[in-house]
């Protein structure tokens, strides 16, 4: 096949066309098509779609700030509230702005143990985020592999896995967590296990659902036709295309996990009291709400709220952006 006979068909290619009077138009068209079809990578297209909602961008910025606070808590925080050497019970229950001889000013007050609330919130955030994100990541990994396996191999494996998922999902998360934690006992690791146990099934089901759809897509058939190894088809073709709904679920689940952890801590079966998460800080301060020592519960409550709301805002926009059915 010679280039010249086919020249009109590949007018897209400037190389194939002489720069005569038409060349300008061709270039114009080139740019035109570039503008419409975009020179964007999926990531950039995604980012620009995401940025459409100022609320979501705001949520994201807030979340990043919150996450930074959490990650660098040990650097920024004026006190390490988990280090008992630094606490003084004599500074217990001080109101916000109270000065102290051996510490400085407690900007957000202290709790009964004399913990600086500001530091406690930062470390609490860290704990909450770590538990929320950690459990989500682990659950995601488990759910992803299990769901993919069920979808790709089908048959009895699918049946068994999905039955387990069904049973698990038909039980409310809080019940499972409650029972599990009362069996396992306390501890960050236990909470993590409980949250993973609660969440993995969501991912498994989501992944399986999408994978079943994606599996029937022609690009998978094409990959099979090209005799690509199964592992490659699953991980390079199937898996990345199952991710978008999963990301949405995951974002929302991080928020859920944080809230659930807070609730469990409130019910007294969450993380240990010596390393309080936001939920536990709230629960601790809960008793002080009516007595006017609002700061112990109020500020962690605000922090929790801001965190969850910002994550949910991001998740919401992600859902809209990644939902193929809403984009034409």
């Amino acid at each position: 096949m010679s280039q010249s006979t086919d020249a009109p068909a590949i007018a897209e290619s400037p190389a194939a066309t002489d720069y005569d009077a038409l060349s300008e138009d061709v270039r114009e068209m080139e740019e035109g098509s570039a503008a419409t079809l975009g020179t964007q990578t999926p990531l950039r297209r995604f980012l620009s779609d995401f940025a459409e909602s100022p609320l979501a961008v705001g949520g994201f910025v807030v979340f990043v700030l919150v996450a930074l606070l959490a990650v660098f808590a040990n650097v920024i925080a004026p006190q390490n509230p988990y280090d008992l050497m630094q606490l003084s019970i004599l500074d217990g229950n001080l109101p916000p702005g109270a000065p102290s001889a051996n510490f400085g000013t407690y900007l957000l007050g202290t709790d009964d143990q004399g913990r600086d609330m500001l530091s406690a919130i930062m470390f609490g955030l860290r704990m909450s985020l770590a538990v929320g994100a950690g459990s989500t990541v682990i659950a995601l990994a488990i759910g992803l592999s299990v769901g993919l396996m069920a979808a790709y191999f089908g048959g009895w494996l699918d049946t068994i896995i999905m039955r387990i998922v069904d049973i698990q999902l038909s039980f409310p998360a809080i019940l499972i967590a409650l029972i599990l934690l009362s069996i396992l006992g306390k501890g960050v690791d236990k909470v993590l296990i409980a949250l993973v146990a609660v969440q993995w099934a969501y991912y498994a089901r989501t992944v399986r659902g999408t994978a079943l759809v994606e599996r029937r897509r022609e690009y998978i058939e094409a990959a099979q036709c090209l005799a690509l190894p199964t592992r490659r088809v699953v991980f390079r073709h199937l898996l990345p295309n199952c991710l978008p709904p999963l990301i949405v679920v995951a974002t929302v689940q991080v928020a859920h996990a944080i809230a659930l952890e807070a609730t469990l801590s409130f019910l007294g079966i969450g993380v240990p009291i010596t390393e309080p998460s936001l939920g536990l800080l709230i629960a601790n301060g809960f008793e002080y709400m009516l007595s006017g020592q609002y700061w112990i519960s109020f500020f962690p409550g605000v922090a929790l709220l801001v965190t969850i709301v910002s994550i949910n805002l991001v998740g919401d926009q992600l859902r809209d952006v990644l939902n193929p059915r809403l984009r034409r």
Partner: protein
Amino acid sequence: MTAAPLLRLEDVSKRFVKHLDFAEKIANRLGAHIREQVVHAVDHVSFDVGQGEVVGLVGESGCGKSTLGRVVAGIHPQSDGHVYYRDRDVAAVRAGEGAEAKRYALGVQMIFQDPFASLNPRLRVRDIVGEAPRVHGLVDEGSSLDDYVDDVMRRVGLDPAFKRRYPHQFSGGQRQRIGIARALAVKPEFLVCDEAVAALDVSIQAQVLNLFMDLRADLDLTYLFISHDLSVVEHLSDRVVIMYLGRVVEIAPTPDLFAAPNHPYTQALLEQVPRIDGRKKAFTPIKGEIPSPLDPPPGCHFHPRCPHAMDRCRVERPASKPVGAGRLSACHLNDTA
């Protein structure tokens, strides 16, 4: 046509069976009458495709064209019958390992209908085209994969400058070219084109059809060209296979078929294809619609809609019989005539 066919289908069937599950079996014990749902998507089909030939496969929606195409391309195994490629039973070859199996697997490639669904949206064009050659080590020593991909892209009329782009950054026609490039990259001999131009606009469709013809000329490719658009098939193919509800009803060289269709279904089909030169035509439709493949009519599948149906058609499945040079037709009328 060359003597030894490149591909030969012998009595190939493909059934999709929805087996009874545990509960349904119990229900049957209790007196319910739940049957397994069986779709004869492809029902005892035999024909062959010669080296370098273009065979058109025509039929209405759901008649099993794609399924047959997939069987040929090796995506689905057939339930019955044999597929011979270069006179070797494909099932046996595929069961084995190594070069031979790979050669068959790569030798037959498929071009898909939907230019959107058939490309992995998360891969760049370079990877879509280059992945299989790399995995299978098809690229010659010395020349780099990039050059190879550039080559293939140029061949299908795509500017290699675009190879770092993602599929969504291309128009439908360009995407279809990417799909073709992906297939060509593994140096196939046989292309199964499943409605490869159906989703394209007329002007783009013409471009792609031209590309197919050029490739055939340049690379000595053989095509099984699946389409429901008779004019496209007429334009492109040497021979045409007409399917109805999983069965082949007629096979004939293209000019003969369009000049004098034998099977009543073919006749009706040709009659009803709108043509640009058929002005203010009074449409005279055949009655009825295509029956469900789950529950096809007995005998000749076409008899409920056939204007010439006889009693015999209602009970006996007509066999494919020669009705002229290189022509086969499955209709009882040919016996009586």
